[in-house]
């Protein structure tokens, strides 16, 4: 019995010293992290959020500016905007791991011998809940917080199943994710393959634009034809949807069912809460 305990302890000790670890990135490439990283630079908001949730924000030495960054990171040195970070500013911080780098910047950083880890769809694009979970797992492995990350994933999955159970069997509500930057600008909608689409389906809705692949610009006329009963949009754009003289004719606007949701809460570690919010808005009667 004593020997068994010893063996388990040894195993735990070995597991604890997991480095070097190897994590598969969005390109299917094995990224080798030689030792526990302590100087992280974060280039996409989701990765910053994951680190904050893992209570490891102390390891971050720099962050790319984005309105979606968690507030905890606002005092850290910035390395330029998230859509175009500065290579020089990143290098000046001497990071031992860069999270969420993509495109040209990633190639340059790797050529200079800096380890970059990005997961999800091509170039780190987050396509849905699974990509969020994969990002949590990858970051957990990369920074030596695998167990905590797994627990986080378990919690999110459990919350998602709870929401889904609550609306099981309810008739699907026709809905749309609609982005309207200004009253007179074209409307963009989310179709199949977007995180918005997945959330709509899981929350008991039916995406009226499920014949569209990805995000697409549609005419307001098309919205009249599809007539969603509920519309989700960015909180800053709710007014645009409500005030549009054309959209006034669709059911969602007539019945006042236009709701704002931050995109940063969708591709986020808070995705389960966002799903719950969505389900409550689509099926208020199920949550009474």
């Amino acid at each position: 019995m004593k020997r068994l305990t010893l063996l388990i302890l040894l195993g735990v000790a070995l597991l604890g010293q997991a480095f070097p670890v190897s994590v598969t990135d969005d390109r299917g490439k094995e990224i080798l992290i030689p030792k526990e990283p302590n100087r992280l630079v974060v280039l996409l908001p989701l990765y910053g959020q994951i680190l904050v949730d893992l209570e490891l924000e102390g390891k971050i030495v720099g962050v790319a500016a984005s309105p979606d960054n968690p507030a905890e990171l606002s005092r850290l040195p910035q390395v330029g905007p998230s859509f175009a970070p500065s290579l020089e500013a990143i290098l000046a911080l001497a990071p031992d791991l860069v999270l969420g780098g993509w495109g040209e910047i990633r190639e340059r950083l790797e050529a200079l011998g800096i380890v970059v880890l990005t997961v999800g769809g091509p170039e780190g694009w987050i396509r849905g809940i699974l990509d969020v979970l994969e990002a949590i797992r990858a970051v957990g492995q990369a920074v030596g917080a695998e167990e905590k990350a797994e627990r986080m994933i378990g919690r999110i999955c459990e919350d998602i199943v709870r929401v889904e159970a609550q609306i099981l069997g309810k008739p699907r509500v026709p809905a749309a994710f609609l982005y309207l930057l200004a009253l007179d600008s074209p409307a963009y909608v989310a179709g199949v393959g977007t995180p918005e689409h997945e959330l709509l389906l899981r929350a008991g809705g039916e995406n009226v634009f499920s014949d569209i692949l990805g995000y697409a610009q549609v005419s307001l006329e098309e919205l009249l034809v599809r007539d969603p009963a509920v519309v989700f949009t960015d909180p800053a754009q709710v007014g645009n949807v409500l005030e549009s003289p054309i959209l006034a004719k669709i059911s969602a606007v007539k019945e006042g069912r236009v709701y704002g949701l931050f995109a940063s809460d969708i591709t986020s570690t808070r995705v389960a809460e966002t799903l719950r919010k969505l389900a409550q808005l689509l099926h208020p009667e199920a949550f009474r």
Partner: protein
Amino acid sequence: MLYKVSPFRKTVTHHLLLFTLLSALSLGSVLAAVFLGPAPLSFSQVVAALLGKGEDKARIIVWELRFPRASLGFLAGAALSLSGAVMQGVFRNPLASPYVLGVAAGSTAGAAAAVAFGPSFFPRPMAAFLGGICAAFLVWKLGRTELGLILAGIALSSLFSAATSFLLFLTAGNRRLEEILFWTMGGLSRATWPDVRLLAPIVAGGTLLLWAWARRLDALSLGEESARFLGLEPRALRRILLGGAVLLTASTVSLTGTIGFVGLIVPHMMRLVLGPGHRKLLPSSALAGGVFLVWADVFARLVLAPAELPVGVVTALVGVPFFLFLLRRAR
């Protein structure tokens, strides 16, 4: 008067002085740009890094980022304003820029097509270069006269821009979009030594070739009639001069994307200072264009650091008022 300096001697010393000054300014600017950047490196840190000493971080920033970037900026500025000067001379049109023959729109469309459909191993700069050359070749085949060439250039530029917009539309909702946008905005942020090694001989060779033809460009810019009268064949002459300018522009754009205003404004500035003779105008435009773009890029890197402005914004914001000032003074 006791000493009468011959006008010939005077101009020679004048030229020598001017070119020594511009060359020194060029070297000095590239070197100064290596000391300036968003990373807080002290003067002595940069000096140590330049000598190959000091910490790794500073060495990488100085040798792998700032130095190739400043060098590429100089070469790109030189190539663009040289070919701008040639285009303005050949077309006898002050509005001509390096992009009159559709090179910019063609390269952008080429790069966009490679990003949208091309296999990942196909180098984007190669696609951009081919697109630029193709566009210029089509324009050359379609336009007979000077005006015809300019109109064909405008028409095909619009066509290629439309093709780019279509490709942008197809790749919407995808990070690849931003790679295409790079070519439409232009910038030096991806500069590497291999880029510099590629562009340097092209710019050097192009400058020498075009310089050697400067006198004939003078004749051509007086009009086809006068050129013919001087025993030159205008169409053949135009082909060589435009060919050289297009080659310079397309190589540059394929590495840096489309950077505006340098090729339009710098030759005009030099013309206001030095007069229209191309023997002086071409090399001085090249040097001044290089210096101008190096400083524009320093500005672009520092103003909102660590964010970087697109360098085309700086070339326009700084270049246009200065140009207007020169224009007013000249009148």
